[in-house]
């Protein structure tokens, strides 16, 4: 127990009182949370609850990176957005929602998304990174940047009625995304929510769990899901936790002889590696109906 010193203001004590009275959390963890920073990459189905719960919980500095505008077909799952923000940049729309929940935190927007040019700089200036994107090239880039900047990465994904969650690059033995998937899948084996569809509340569940993992990492409370992969089957209502490998010595970014470095990251071709552009060009018009 760390004593009762904390740097919370009177308003913070009132606002976060229900977390502060919790013995396993308390004023110290709340204080760490208020002094922490989290970068959320993707303000869509996963990023919406992540941004809202982290803003509500009092993460002091919240970064939101995305490059899309809100569309009507996003609203069935992206609860940080509103009918009134359709057509508006997702960073602005999500930022508005976060500030309306908690005006005492700082919200920063990165409207060009998390791209190679700013990857290292961005990953370096946040304590925890949350991958809430929807494509393979972004996932490799984000993981590489987190390894090189030494930051833990909360990675969630959802498609159809399935969800997955893990924490990469955490602790002495936590693997990175490349340790698990050294070779990229072929583009035809990857589907996105836009082309495969998703039951809207599934990214909501996974995103809420990502917010929890980010809070655990930022506050130093609880055991983060490192070396564990949580699988969710929404139709069966079933969660399964599986045990993952540790960091791989052969990994080309976090292994013993890394080939990707802070310098080479800029010129690494994620498009060539994954066989896909790092951002889908937007969904094809729906012709089913």
């Amino acid at each position, binding site marked *: 127990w760390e004593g009762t010193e904390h740097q919370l203001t009177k308003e913070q004590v009132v606002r976060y009182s229900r977390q502060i009275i919790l013995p396993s959390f308390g004023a110290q963890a709340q204080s760490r949370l208020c002094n922490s920073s989290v970068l959320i990459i993707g303000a869509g189905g996963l990023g919406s609850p992540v941004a809202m719960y982290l803003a509500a919980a009092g993460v002091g500095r919240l970064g939101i990176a995305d490059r899309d505008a809100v569309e009507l077909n996003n609203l069935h799952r992206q609860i940080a957005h509103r009918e009134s923000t359709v057509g508006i940049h997702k960073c602005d729309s999500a930022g508005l929602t976060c500030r309306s929940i908690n005006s005492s935190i700082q919200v920063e927007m990165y409207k060009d998304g998390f791209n190679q040019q700013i990857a290292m700089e961005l990953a370096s200036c946040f304590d925890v990174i949350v991958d809430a994107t929807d494509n393979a090239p972004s996932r490799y880039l984000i993981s590489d940047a987190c390894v090189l900047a030494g930051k833990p990465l909360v990675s969630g*994904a959802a498609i159809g009625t399935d969800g997955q969650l893990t924490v990469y690059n955490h602790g002495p033995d936590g693997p990175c995304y490349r340790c698990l998937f050294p070779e990229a*899948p072929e583009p035809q084996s990857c589907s996105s929510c836009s082309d495969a569809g998703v039951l809207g509340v599934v990214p909501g569940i996974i995103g809420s769990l990502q917010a929890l993992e980010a809070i655990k990492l930022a506050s130093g409370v609880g055991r983060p899901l490192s070396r564990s*992969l949580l699988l969710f089957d929404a139709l069966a209502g079933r969660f399964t936790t599986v045990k993952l490998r540790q960091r791989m010595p052969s990994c080309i970014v976090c292994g013993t002889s890394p080939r990707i470095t802070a310098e080479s990251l800029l010129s690494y071709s994620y498009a060539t590696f994954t066989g896909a552009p790092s951002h889908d060009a937007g969904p094809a018009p729906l012709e089913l109906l």
Partner: protein
Amino acid sequence: MITCKIELSGGLETLFGDSKEHSLQVEPENGQATLGDVIISARDKLLTERPELFMKNRSVRPGILVLINDTDWELTGQLQTIVEDGDTVTFISTLHGG
């Protein structure tokens, strides 16, 4: 001959008749059945379409995690892992959506 349980996740079930759970009998090539044998048997006996989305060369395609009894096959010996009667082998396709 051993019988193991096959579980599919992350959309791979669409290649296996849309069923997430199967029972599979495996005839070992040399004495004991390995995960390598299970993969070949699953392709031959259970896979219903597009084998290229399941296998590449003699293993699973990139982007698929293989688990034996809920543990990453990297911790148990990959293709050479011995599979015993009653074990559960899980194939998970990594998801990118959000």
